[in-house]
């Protein structure tokens, strides 16, 4: 159960700056695409066009061939999982209620759904459901955020630098968890990151963005052997040196 994402000639201006210029790409069902680039490259804007947090000036985003702009934005967002950088958990809700957010909004919150989502994210329901977000470590909080993004049965996951604020060991644990999760749940995902090595590790394909334009899109190996621009080549070199 997953969804195909089509981004068709999407452009967006923020004031005088072109955030996205005529971006076109396709993500197959079940694929994980990483959006890599510096801040200001447009990677987060592109991500947010998918669940209508940002409305493109022109072009369209389609899910399984249906334009998101034709649907109620609230319903679009409820159908798509979203994991922001610092988790964005509701601090005044216990973990269980946080995970149940989208099912609850849809009027069908069940303990079993919540429990399954938490299990997928590597959290024991009994141990964590009644705890407060501020009692958890950063890594545990991101696991809760991932469980919350899946609990509504979403077939598409948008992740905005989800592991950026974690220490190296926790990040590597979360990387493993994410790969396991993909195998088990089989959703389509879009991962925004500024870390090329993370993209190589987690994504099937990588899109390198710069100033609102895709410099290169392809598998990790191709990026290394046949970089389409100097910018991409330097990016790959820097990632390997570091």
């Amino acid at each position: 159960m997953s969804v195909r994402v089509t981004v068709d000639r999407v452009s967006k201006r923020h004031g005088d700056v072109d955030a996205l210029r005529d971006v076109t790409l396709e993500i197959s069902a079940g694929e994980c695409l990483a959006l890599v680039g510096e801040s200001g490259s447009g990677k987060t804007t592109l991500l947010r066009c998918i669940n209508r947090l940002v409305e493109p000036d022109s072009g369209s985003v389609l899910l399984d061939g249906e334009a998101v702009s034709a649907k109620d934005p609230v319903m679009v967002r409820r159908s798509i999982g979203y994991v922001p950088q610092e988790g964005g958990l509701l601090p005044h809700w216990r973990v269980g209620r946080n995970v149940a957010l989208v099912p609850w909004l849809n009027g069908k919150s069940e303990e079993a759904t919540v429990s399954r989502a938490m299990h997928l994210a590597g959290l024991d329901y009994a141990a964590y459901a009644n705890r407060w977000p501020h009692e958890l470590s950063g890594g545990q909080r991101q696991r809760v955020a991932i469980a919350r993004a899946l609990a509504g049965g979403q077939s598409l996951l948008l992740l905005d630098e989800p592991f950026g604020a974690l220490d190296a060991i926790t990040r590597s644990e979360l990387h493993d968890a994410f790969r396991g999760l993909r195998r088990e749940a089989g959703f389509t995902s879009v991962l925004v990151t500024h870390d090329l090595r993370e993209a190589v590790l987690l994504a099937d394909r990588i899109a390198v963005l710069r100033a609102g334009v895709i410099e290169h899109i392809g598998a990790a190996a191709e990026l290394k052997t046949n970089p389409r621009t100097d910018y991409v080549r330097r990016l790959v070199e820097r990632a390997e040196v570091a």
Partner: protein
Amino acid sequence: MRRVLFIALLLGFGASSLGAQDSRQDRRPVIVASKPFGESFLLAEMFAQVLEQRGVRVERRPGLGATEVAFAALRSGGIDVYPEYTGTGLLAILHEDVIPDAPAVFEKVSREFIERYGVHWLAPLGFENTYAIAVTKKTAAKYSLRTLGDLASVSFSLTAGLTPDFIGRPDGLPALQEKYTMRFAGVKPLSQALKYQALAQESVDVIDGYSTDGLIKRYDLLVLEDDRKVFPPYQAAALIGARLWKTRPDAIAALSQLSGRLDVTAMRALNARVEVDREPIARVARDELIALGLAGSSGRETRARSTGEGFASYMNEHRSELFAQFLRHVMLVLIALSAGIAVAILLGLLLERSRRSAEPVIRGVGVLQTIPSIALLAFMIPLLGIGVWPALVALWLYSLYPILRATYTGVRDADPAAVHAAHALGMTGNQLLRYVRLPLATPVIMSGIRTATVITIGTATLAAFVGAGGLGEPIATGLALADNRMILSGALPAAALALVADGLLALVERAVTPVHIKSR
């Protein structure tokens, strides 16, 4: 449930005391009011007793906040009679220029007040209470002073201790300088309470005062004659509202008995008994009415008051009226604040949903805060009369801003990461407000409510100036009579109330604060 009952009781208490003044037109008592200073209290009490002697039922509303409030209440029929001064009528109400001749002033205000307001001046009581320039008899003898003209010729060697008000206003010191070429060697600004002592200790040679100040007699001072008629004449008289004038000839006849019966010496002596000796006003008024033959010595027994010195014994003596004033104070605050909380929080939430109008609206409400309270109260009297309503509305208006500002800021700035994530996962704007912004904003909103509560408890003391009662009553009267025990008997319970209320609200705040903030 019990809390609801309690509030309902308080509301009922308020409503019944509101309703009382409207019941059955013909049975309505004559409402006698005064402005908040000793002489006005005393004259109003004499009016009240002289009416009661003639079998007229009287309701007393002493201490209405200054001329604007008292006169607005008289015009609107909220009160029926209060003592006023012709000069005040001419300058402060009609805004005319000074006329030096007393009968001419009386003739002018009598005519104009009937034409413009339907309000009647009874014939003057017999004394003037105008500015007085006084010196000790010793100084008077040394320079052979009798008039202000005499004083001007030696003023360069004398120091004056004057109230700041007198130094500033055009009919005060500037008028003396212009008309008498008065040139004091020095002018010291002194408060009302200090200047008589300063004169007695010879720190100053000349002071200003009012011609009927009890202390003029007490310190045996000489009031210099205003031979060039610089000070406007301030003849005291009863000012009568339109309805009383038309419907109660018996009351007018009773009040007219006092016309021309009080001279300046008598008034000074009476004021001294009230302000210096702290005798109860009711007793001083009754003694004088007996002396004037307007009351029998076997008349209504006024409550005897001990002259105990201690504050504790004072509080104990007045505990039942203080308790009633305390309850009234709590009622005013509770009702005004509940309405303020409801409206301000609702408005704050609405503004979060339409942010473009937020700042203009909040600033507009903030402007209300800058209206001086007495002006706001005076403005509302034509609409709401006097008593509890204008006080409630004013307190309600003053409570809005802190709560509104806190609510709006609190919901607008609530944890942006949590708000963003909940939005991205499909909460609607209203759901975000209800389930994320509002709960996260509760500590900020509570701080606004606490601020508003303390402000309202303090401001509610001004309710006394529109006859709404409360702890402001002993404070206002105490200030007018320079009676510290009386001031404290209102001020201390009000302060205690503010502390207790703030403490209780701190507990509420703790209960509603989200757990993650508490554990920080």
